[in-house]
């Protein structure tokens, strides 16, 4: 599958830009520190560790402590980027994230690595597809970059923003979105394709797939709007009003469809302007298998998204 092939031209593992951006920021701002759980390599922080050996705190395999230490470092005037596989960062330490970071409102940046189903074959314990549902209700800005450019912008924005942030990164190679003159606006959806027949709302690794679905549908004479919905919390309500005005919505996420982006959109439309919403994503615990196979199996493909668009259009009143 082209979308998962690491060697496909123009496809990039966004962990590289995450760490080069963090290093640039850390050169300029001595308050920036990294906190990890034996995850130096998987967070690509080896060169950060070489450059700033005193500014990488490895607490060992101890996620609850890792989040608590992040809160404490913020209390002490540091700007911690706490980086770990997002399944353990959010799941294992959920109460620490809720109480010590969000509720206590500490200036901590949580960086979830290899999120979604990046660890395909390692199974449901290592998939991080419940994180949107867990974190969306909290006092926490949740950002899911769609490509390398947006990853860099999100890291820069998080560093200067005073407040808790969850950056949900991926290791799955993605192409740069073909959108001219981009400006990163947290809390605002980005229009990737415009159209009036329906709106596809996607985030992270699935945005480029949604754009390709729209290109297919265009050939059939269906004009889709495609939104890159990088901020899951808070929601861009204006963009959702406009999406509802197209009369049908498809949501796409590398996450569980219960409580995630699709859930958020369905909650919003049910309250404000009921329209058919088709949710593309994962229904629950997944079988073992490689990430590109899981994407195909659950319809996170241009064809699968286009089929969901037809279902949504069929339900349009």
């Amino acid at each position: 599958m082209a979308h998962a092939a690491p060697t496909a031209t123009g496809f990039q593992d966004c962990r590289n830009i995450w760490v080069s951006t963090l290093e640039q920021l850390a050169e300029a701002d001595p308050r920036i520190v990294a906190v990890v759980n034996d995850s130096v390599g998987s967070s690509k922080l080896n060169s950060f560790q070489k450059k700033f050996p005193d500014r990488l705190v490895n607490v060992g395999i101890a996620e609850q402590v890792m989040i608590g230490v992040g809160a404490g470092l913020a209390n002490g005037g540091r700007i911690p980027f706490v980086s770990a596989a997002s399944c353990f960062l959010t799941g294992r330490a959920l109460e620490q994230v809720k109480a010590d970071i969000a509720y206590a409102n500490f200036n901590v940046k949580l960086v979830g690595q290899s999120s979604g189903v990046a660890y395909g074959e390692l199974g449901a314990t290592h998939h991080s597809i419940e994180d949107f549902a867990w974190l969306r209700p909290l006092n926490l800005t949740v950002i899911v970059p769609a490509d390398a450019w947006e990853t860099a912008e999100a890291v820069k924005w998080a560093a200067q923003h005073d407040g808790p942030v969850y950056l949900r990164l991926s290791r799955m190679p993605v192409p740069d979105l073909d959108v001219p003159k981009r400006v990163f606006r947290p809390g605002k959806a980005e229009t990737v394709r415009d159209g009036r027949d329906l709106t596809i709302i996607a985030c992270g690794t699935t945005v480029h797939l949604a754009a390709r679905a729209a290109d297919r549908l265009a050939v059939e004479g269906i004009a889709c709007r495609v939104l890159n919905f990088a901020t899951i919390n808070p929601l861009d309500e204006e963009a959702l009003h406009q999406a509802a005005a197209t009369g049908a919505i498809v949501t796409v996420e590398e996450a569980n469809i219960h409580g995630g982006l699709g859930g958020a959109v369905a909650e919003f439309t049910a309250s404000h302007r009921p329209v058919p919403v088709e949710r593309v994503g994962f229904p629950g615990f997944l079988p073992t298998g490689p990430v590109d196979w899981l994407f195909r199996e659950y319809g996170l493909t241009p064809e699968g998204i286009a089929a969901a668009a037809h279902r949504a259009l069929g339900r349009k009143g």
Partner: protein
Amino acid sequence: MLTNDKLSLIRDKALWMRRTAFTMVHRAQLGHPGGDFSAMDILATLYFGVLNYDPKRPDWADRDRFVMSKGHATGALYATLCAAGYFPEDWLPTYMQPKSLLNGHPNRNYLPGIETNTGPLGHGFPVATGIAIAGQLTGASYRTFVLTGDGEQQEGSNWEAAMVCGHRKLANLTLIIDRNRLQQGAGTEETSGLDPLDDKYRAFGFDVHEVDGHDHAALLSLLSAAPGDRPRCVIANTTKGKGVSFMENVASWHHGVPNDAQYAQAMKELV
């Protein structure tokens, strides 16, 4: 069975299990061979010298329980369960293939012989503690063994479980720590040091023993010794990647996978 017969069985099984696990990892190009190989002699000793089980009756109420807390070492666990007769050899090549029952981490709903799902570290010991409490409550005769990594001991949940075991004097539980001194990225002592592990567990109320984790005879006598009056902790000093020269004590083999030449070399050494 006479002790010498048992020891030669354990040696044969451990060799077959190492070859089998490495073949699975080579084929899948995924896995955790370093931690598979440090644990292999402990698993072979338990399953072919110590544990009381019947692969035809995995739900037998009085079976001894083994909990693989370091769930990433499925190469070792699946090779062991297969050798013990829980499932046929022709399932092994499906390791981590789409919809395989041989998931990257063990799932009790997929395979017989797995007591609980693990993978996130620091889960197995608390579950084993519950299994041991159930045995205490019902007066059952089974014993509970749990194997954790040493890096895994950095998870606080282990120490919460240790406190419960010590408090309740769970003599029917044995905690085995695979003390290979390496975790995912580096040595345990340079990451978040564990020493002195023996004093720590003694302070928590355990009967603590150290053993060479590749010495089948020493493992056999220690692990089959009758329970005493308190929980037991066995610190098994091991070598990560034990048995394959280029893997031994090399951190990157935590989740490194062999190319064809490395695989062939390993098969030459594993005889």
